[in-house]
């Protein structure tokens, strides 16, 4: 059994800052991480590997520095890693990205047929949730999105049973392999690899593929292959206000509480009258 897990290296959105003057995203110094949603899919793939002895290949498209994310995936226990990198891929939207990844998966399938493709539910930088379904459509795979658990994988009958969250309830679905799965967040937590995995991750040579290695058509990748147009980018006004230190004489809890309430009312005068009105109503 062969599983391909598609991951993406993204800037850690929790640490992104907006330049106070130019209002642009400051990429400098923002750590790159594996898209957090991808880790739920990677862990699920590794669990299937534990149960069935499947081979897990991680695949990413990105700049050369995306190597770090692949090595990290290897350190969790993945068997092999492919980095799809080419200047021609720059500027790809989700349509072009799903095409490029599909080309690479087809290449991988030539070596060993692919039974399951795992993708993250969405990325934290683009948030479209389009690439996984795009790959499934191109490869003609059964599509299992928003999966909360994988109940069984039958390698003989080539069937898989899963729980899927849907509007208004949970679906229990059975389908034939091959399929494409995106996992819901919070369904598992990524493992802590062994020392052997760490050594392997540090030493395994990565397979670095160009557009040609993946046999991708130049007109379908990068800006040329991307019909999406970004018409406007703007920064929403931040809602959070600056923290304020509250001092209280005597330093007792009551004094602090009173000072805190006073500070809140000072900042939101309406709140005080509202509360008084409500109290009057009983």
């Amino acid at each position: 059994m062969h599983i391909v897990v598609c991951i993406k290296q993204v800037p850690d959105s929790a640490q992104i800052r907006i330049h106070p003057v130019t209002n642009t995203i400051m990429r400098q110094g923002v750590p790159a991480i594996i898209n957090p949603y991808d880790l739920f899919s990677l862990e699920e793939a590794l669990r299937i590997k534990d149960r069935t002895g499947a081979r897990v290949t991680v695949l990413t498209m990105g700049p050369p520095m995306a190597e770090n994310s692949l090595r990290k995936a290897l350190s969790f226990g993945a068997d092999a890693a492919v980095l799809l990198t080419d200047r021609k891929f720059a500027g790809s939207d989700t349509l072009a990205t799903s095409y490029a990844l599909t080309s690479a998966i087809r290449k991988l399938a030539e070596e060993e047929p692919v039974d399951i493709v795992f993708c993250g539910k969405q990325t934290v930088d683009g948030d479209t949730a389009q690439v996984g379904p795009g790959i499934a459509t191109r490869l003609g795979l059964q599509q299992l999105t928003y999966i909360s658990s994988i109940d069984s994988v039958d390698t003989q009958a080539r069937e898989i049973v899963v729980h899927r969250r849907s509007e208004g309830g949970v679906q229990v679905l059975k389908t034939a392999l091959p399929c494409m799965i995106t996992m819901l967040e919070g369904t598992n937590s990524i493992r802590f690899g062994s020392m052997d995995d760490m050594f392997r991750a540090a030493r395994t040579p990565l397979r670095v593929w160009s557009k040609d290695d993946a046999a991708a058509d130049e007109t379908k990748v990068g800006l040329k292959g991307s019909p999406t147009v970004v018409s406007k980018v703007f920064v929403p006004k931040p809602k959070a206000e600056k923290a304020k230190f509250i001092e209280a004489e005597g330093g007792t809890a009551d004094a602090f509480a009173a000072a805190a309430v006073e500070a809140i009312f000072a900042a939101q005068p309406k709140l005080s009258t509202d509360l008084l009105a409500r109290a009057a109503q009983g």
Partner: protein
Amino acid sequence: MVEKFDAIVVGAGPSGNAAAYTLAKGGLNVLQLERGEYPGAKNVQGGIMYAAELEKIIPDFRDDCPTERHIIEQRVWLLGDDSYIGTNYRSDAFNTDRPNRYTIIRANIDKWFSEKIREAGGLQICETTVTELIRDGSGKVIGVRTDREGGEIHADVVIMADGVNALLAKRAGYQPELQPQNVALAVKEILFIDPELIQQRFGVKEEEGVVIEIMGKVTKGMAGTAFLYTNKESLTIGIGCLISDFKAGQCPPYKMLEDLKAHPVIKPLIDGAEMKEYAAHMIPEGGYKAIPQLYGPGWMVAGDAAHFNNAAHREGSNLAMASGRMAAETVLELKAKGQPCTAANLAAYKAKLDQSFIMKDLKKYRNLPSVLHGNKQFFSEYPDVINAAAHNWFTVDSVDKKTKEKQIMGSFVKTRSVLGLVGDAIKLVRSVR
């Protein structure tokens, strides 16, 4: 199968990086283990980087090392309640091709250094905590155990560069627990600010930087110092005091930092800046007398873990890099001669340290920590009386100068008594000789 290396370096700070790089460059099979997510993830430094020691390890580091600004001006300030008295030294001669001091954002430097180690052939594994040393029947260290499954790894020698807590050496019984009076707790903030404002407020050009070292009332009588550094597009401001003082005192560190930021002479410098990062770390400040055993059979300790920090001159990372390099060179020399890393052979590491500025400087200031710890007047009464004297002297108000001199002398005597003044002078002089 248990992996075996020529050397294992624990930690990816300045001392660990210096050791790992020197070993890898020397052709040894070296493994560096770091508990943080990436090198530098757990590391905190003010920070000023002194070029000389890094230059010895990577001579052309200036080509791509991500430093912030090179320092052209040093200020030393003694803060009163609403004033400062101080000295400046600024020179255009610091604008050379090979500046001596740089402000840095530490995590950037550690990442850069680690890249160099990997290029030199060192194997680096992060997110892996070394939990203990492994010893054979004779007590010789033969490797380490990590927190991962199958975590046993062997090596001919282990260099512990695991930072101020030195947990490994402590667990192995090579070091006693840290004493609160030998460790400072420092807190700092990185404040984002328009570089143009830095240039204007400090009177510098884009690449030029200013360092302000601060003592005085702001530490509320505790033994401690503060600092303000100019980075490329941020300011680093911090303050630290001995843990024993924080323990006894009524002021938590964050409050002390807030008070520093609100001080009338500091506030205009940081006005309009936005806090980007808050960090806290311990600093070994026990000096020469707190230096632990530095080597043993199959092991050495370097950097903060060896208590190598010159608090009086705010030097730490250069001592760390130098000691890491010396530990590595000791191993390289033994390997070249085909000799094992026994305690007797590793004594060469101590000999190198003794001959270097590390031990010479720390020895010179060996009495300073106890003098400052036991004489809090240097952090409370003196800043007041000195600032008041300056205020008096520079106020032109028809009082004759002789009377002013008398008033100023009187204020010193009133505060400390003649005997006290003489005693303090002797103590200070003795502590730095």
